[in-house]
């Protein structure tokens, strides 16, 4: 009997150990195997594609020309033009996407035949509260696009998107 009692306790312990092992495995699995990306489900393509598409809209519609320069081709004052671009991006992107746009002017040193990217926006063109939003998001995408303005500035637009709240 004593032997039988000890044997029952051991089996229960083994069964619990086995169950615990499986539960642990399932927990680990759920950590890796998340549910489908809701954005992808909604739009049918990746965040990176979205970023490129946004920049494509910018180029096709001449958004930088309209938002950044006055009629004479003079750069508008900061943060006016940055704010214009931010509003445009907010209109183009779903609310659950955080964005950060950096605008660079390419300067050309003819004497040395070199170019340099000089960041134009002095304030952030972003809807994120902090950079943490991008660090914490598991789905971050970058896109880059050159853009020739009507007044012949060559800009480089760098857009970073992230899903709000991670996966």
């Amino acid at each position, binding site marked *: 009997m004593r*032997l039988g009692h000890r*044997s029952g306790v*051991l*089996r229960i312990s*083994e*069964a619990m*150990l*086995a*169950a615990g*092992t*499986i539960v*642990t*495995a*399932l927990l*680990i*699995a*759920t*950590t*890796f*195997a*998340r549910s489908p*990306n809701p954005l992808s489900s909604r739009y049918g393509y*990746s965040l*990176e*594609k979205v970023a*490129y598409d946004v*920049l*494509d809209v910018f*180029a*096709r519609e001449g958004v930088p020309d309209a938002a950044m320069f006055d009629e004479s081709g003079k750069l508008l004052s900061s943060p006016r033009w940055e704010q214009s671009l931010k509003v445009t991006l907010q209109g183009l992107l779903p609310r659950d996407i955080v964005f950060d746009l950096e605008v660079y002017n*390419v300067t*050309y040193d*003819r004497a040395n*035949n*070199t*170019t*340099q*990217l000089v960041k134009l926006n002095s304030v952030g063109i972003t809807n994120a509260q902090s950079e943490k939003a991008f660090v914490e998001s598991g789905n971050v995408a970058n*896109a*880059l*696009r*050159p*853009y*020739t303005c*009507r007044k*012949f500035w*060559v800009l*480089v637009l760098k857009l970073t998107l992230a899903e709000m709240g991670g996966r």
Partner: protein
Amino acid sequence: MAKDSKARRGQAVIIVALFVSAVIVSMALAISRTSTEHQLLRSYSYNEVVNDIDQDLSRTLERILAEATRIFVGSADFDPSRLWAKDFFTYYVKSLLNAYSGIGLQVNIDLSKSLVLQPQKELKVDINGVTKTFIINERRITDLIKAYWYSPESISAIYVPFAANVTGYGFYGWRKEVLLSLTLDILSIRTSTSKKLTNLTFRVLREGGEPVGSLRAQDISVLIYDPGETGKSCWTNASVVDLSYNGGGNYSVVYNNPSSWGSYALNRSQYVFLRVKDDRGIYVEAASFTGINLVIKENIAPTKVYAPDQIYVFEMLQDGSIYWFGEELKESSGVDFAPLPPLPVKQFRVFATTKGTSGNIFEVPYQVETWTPDYTMPTPNFADWRRRFDVGNKLVFMVNYTQDPSSVVDDTKQRVFITWFDDTDAQPPTYKVVMNVSGAWVTYNVSRYYLELVARPGYSNWIDFSISMWAKTGGYHIEYMLVGYDVYRMSGGYWFPKKLPGGDWVTVTGPIRGVAYRENSIIVVPPLTQSLTDEHYHREYILIPFNTPYFTWQYYGRWLKNTQLDYRYLSVIGQISGTSGDQESSIRPKYCSIQLDPSNPNTKPDRLIINGSYHTSNVFHRDLGISIGGGKYQDADNYGYWIAQYNERFGQGVFIPQATREALRNFDKSGKDIDEVWAWTTADYARRVSEFDALDWDYENAKNYNVNKDTELSVRAAIWLFSGGTVPVDYYYQDPKDWANQNAYKSSTAVKTTDLYYKMFLEDYRPTVMSITVG
């Protein structure tokens, strides 16, 4: 045994559980890996990069072409447009490389590659019911941008052969050729004389023959020929009544006929200059005609005379009228001048025949000059070619007549073809005239002679005879004084002229003709080292054409106040030869010939020209003041249209037109004949002088002559270089009525030249425009 069996069953459960757990974790990892795989593969990125570069390149090239054509419209020089376009394109490509440096973008662009834009073709344009055919030569594009404008079919284009690799993505061998263009075709011009309306149709296509249907009225500029007011451009904006789009890139624009067309509406409506800007901002300009054919006849003799130096420098104005030596050419009946379109002046080319109208045509020397809008004076921009042909511009070209000795060849008429290149890379003509500035001196080298001018005379010894024509062959020179008046009495003699027009000359040269000009109210008084600014306004210019035997001079002056002269004297143009260093030398001109007035009753039919020799000391040879005994005076007021000084190797003549002779004759309003040709030998170094004077020097009556306020003097002359001639030494005579104080000669071989060419400069003998056709 039972105990062992139970223990093993427990271990099996754990083993199975561990296995199941391992499977679950593996599957989860696999799913996770799968879900993040795209971030490693970047499959989207290279597509997007290639597409972005493709799209951005096209849009950038559009903007480059738009800006380049805009610059060209304003500058009339395609080089700055191309330089700008290439510079910006280089900057753009470098920007691309910089932006995509992280993915290893490599770009190869060969702008020297050439592409056929259009093969050679015949273009037909319906002009008032008549189909005109234009040959459009093959058009190619290279070096980034190209513009073929100013013909009925014009095109602006940009072309980039592009090759790229994206090494970061392992993407190699991407090749693309980007060609963007805008083509404008003038299809028809139809005018209604009854409705006084003209309908212009044209077509606008972009690359690939895609119609442009977005033009608005403000995108189109229609210039038409309206020869209205003098001093204003004869190309005016059409008064558009209606603009309509007919599909397929076809437009029609209806505008009012200008009132100046009158009965010439059918002819004048054919001249259209059209500019279009599409919605990309790309410009293109077309002209409804590509050239003007003229037949111009010389008239110096009823039948052909061999005169190989009969070279005319014609000046064609914007309205198509043609001038020579300040006079508009005669026109045969029915001739209506064709205007020169407002295109960059470097596009023009002028061709002419050399052996008559049926001969081959050759490119002739030409240039475009900029004068004041009323064409009275040159401007500092005289030879600036970076401009459009406008009011104030002259297209100047040379045509040579009667240079074939054969009487069978009728080269009294030459065909002239004025055209313009459609290739906007056409360069301006090269310079043939060389102008050197050295201190106060300016020298024009025009092949046959040097013209030296004291351009900043100050009060130097060169203030009076400050222009010197040096022969390259013969090696000597004669100096000229252009207008001088009054005489200053000094101890031991007289200084004349006392007063001269002063001020510095502006000196400029174009490719085939130089100019020196000045306009002011400065009168210098050399004996007193003074200047006045309230007595006489004057403007004058000297034109020095390349490789002709002559230069020309034109003067207009007006007295600003009543002016009493110390002694009556007004010389219009005088020539003087001999220097202090060559008094005894044979290199000096020693003979003078003077054409007499054949209508003067004192002129004998066998003595139409006086040929005399100069003295070695101060004497007068021809002067109204020379007494010939019995109270008679020499009739020095009998003169014609030329005078000349020469020796056996060298000579120069002064030709005046009829209007100048009349100005000399009529300057004095009292009715006295006190104008003359004065020939004399000076006291200083026995220099030789011959001059046309409007007022002779009245040395007997001081303070006896006034020039009234507002009296005008408008005169012209040509100075002609020739190779001299001889007189028959045993065939002289002495007749003070003809030539005092030295021998006169009944003939001279030198006068053959002057007596042959002087008619070129007479109004009655100016050339005639026989016909004008436009194509």
